[in-house]
């Protein structure tokens, strides 16, 4: 399915979707076709890191992945979905309350996904309570908080306090991300690390979770 992989990587939307239909129609399993998409996404991620692709390409690839998944979904068995779960670990991400910047968070999420983490994205302007509740229920290994406004520091800190109060702080690593984060902010919030680029956290995730 190299032609499908190529179409994904080159972001040729129509061609990729046509090929997806063709392969599924020809009897390829949903899982195989999905893997072609994943390979394509991995290459797109690599091109982003290499500064060959930029945010516009990531947004388009996100849209393509979405459209492709819709086509593939009916062909995926329950066993396929379960198999997908033996990932490196789980990361819960959100842009904190009061802030709606999501480009950086989405990139970080995409990179973590490509690196083999299961990512749950709660969206933007997410109340502290929602993040802490979700951390309780879903039990992620990493909580990634994005915020680009200086007013995001306090909500980030409240999430960390919420995690402590819920007895979860020792069980999760907290990463804060966004252009306005640095070591001062990291300390203020009580996070484990800060990330002003999307790969930092992948590297850390691999370090934290790789050994387990």
């Amino acid at each position: 399915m190299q032609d499908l992989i190529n179409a994904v990587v080159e972001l040729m939307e129509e061609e990729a979707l046509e090929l997806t239909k063709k392969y599924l129609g020809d009897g390829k399993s949903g899982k195989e076709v999905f893997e072609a998409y994943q390979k394509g996404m991995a290459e797109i991620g690599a091109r982003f890191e290499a500064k060959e692709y930029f945010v516009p390409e990531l947004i388009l690839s996100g849209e393509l992945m979405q459209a492709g998944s819709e086509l593939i979904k009916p062909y995926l068995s329950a066993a396929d979905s379960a198999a997908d779960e033996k990932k490196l670990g789980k990361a819960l991400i959100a842009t904190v309350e009061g802030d709606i910047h999501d480009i950086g968070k989405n990139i970080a999420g995409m990179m973590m996904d490509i690196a083999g983490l299961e990512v749950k994205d709660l969206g933007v302007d997410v109340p502290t309570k929602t993040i802490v509740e979700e951390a309780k229920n879903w039990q992620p290994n990493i909580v990634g908080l994005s915020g680009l406004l200086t007013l995001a520091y306090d909500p980030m800190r409240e999430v960390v306090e919420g995690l402590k109060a819920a007895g979860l702080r020792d069980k999760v690593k907290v990463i804060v991300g966004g252009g306005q984060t640095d070591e001062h902010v990291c300390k203020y919030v009580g996070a484990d690390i800060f990330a002003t680029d999307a790969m930092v956290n992948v590297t850390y995730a691999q370090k934290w979770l790789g050994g387990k």
Partner: protein
Amino acid sequence: MTDYSKLYDERQKRFEDAVALRKPDRVPMIVMPEYFPARLSGYSIKEVMYNPEAMSQAWLAYHEKYQPDRADNPFRIRGFGSLLEVYDFQHLKWAGHGLPDNMAYQFVELELMKPEEYDHFIHDMTDFMIRRYWPRVNKSLAAFEKLPPFNSEISYLFGLYGPVAFLDPEIRKAVETVGRAAEECAKILASGRALGMKYKELGFPPSSGALTQAPFDTLSDFFRGTKGLMVDLRRRPDKVMAACEKLMPVMLEVALRSTKASGCPIVFIPLHKCMDTFMSQSQFEKFYWPHLQQLLQELIKNDRIPWVLMEGVCNDRLNSFRNVPEGKMVWHIEGSDIRKAKEAFKGVACVRGNLPVSVLVTGTPDDVRAECKKLMDLMKDDGGFIFDTGVNIGDASIENVDAMYEYVREHGAY
């Protein structure tokens, strides 16, 4: 007794020296206060947004306390609560309208121009503005969407009966709304002028006399949205190019007109969408830089001083940005590497920035002094530098702002 006119001249010269890459008497210091002065004087943001007296008093108190080298006049883009209400304005959430009383207003991204509307915009921008854009961004003018186009109202053969549209009660109401907006505008602008006079009496020249944008940014921020325009770059690049070309003279005109009216030649140009990760270098060189470069050259030719705030990280763009006339403008750094900027603009342009505002919000006064020292040691040199933060100080703690101003005052002399 303080000689305020002497103070004014000194400040003016200090800034001009820095811009011209000469050595001033000391490092000029200007920061963008956002709503910090309200907090300093114990007002909520909502109070100053709606009460011009409170706003003037708070801003005067800020300037008297810190003595920055240029004054921030907040009325046009901060003291406009009553006007936003008249418009039922959709591009912002603000205190009392979707936000708590003490939160600074926030931009709401909207796709006010659909992809299929590029041609309308390019063909007749004014018609698009009146019949499509205004009705969408100002909910109280929604009825203008029903207006017919007026380009065929030509003399007696075609042109006498267009106004019949105004019989529509909703359109009539919208027209009355424009009248009410006019009254609010006049009040706000008058408050701004009064404060400007007061600043002048106290020896503070204004921070800027106009605001404009790179055409690509205007198209992205206000018409297509960040993601919408990024996708357009691939799906309909020709339309993007045509729209930017359409906007270029508009962005130049607005800057020339406002600086002429205000008498202050400084033009503030915040850059939003050219960060390193937002487009490839070749896209930047095609869709972004040519119009911005032309804008800067035209402004400079007309004796205006562009003050360009590079938002985010633009390290890969510095090589293009340095192609501007020498000693005529200011590049304000936020997240880009200030060492690289210093190198790139050496002998070319004044660099402004970029104390990390994170330290002002979350650090201690000692942390602040340490960061100030780092920045001053690196940048003070022989001039060509203006001390500023990377982003506005709206959320900074008062004691940290005190520490910052004190440090620069103590160590700023050349």
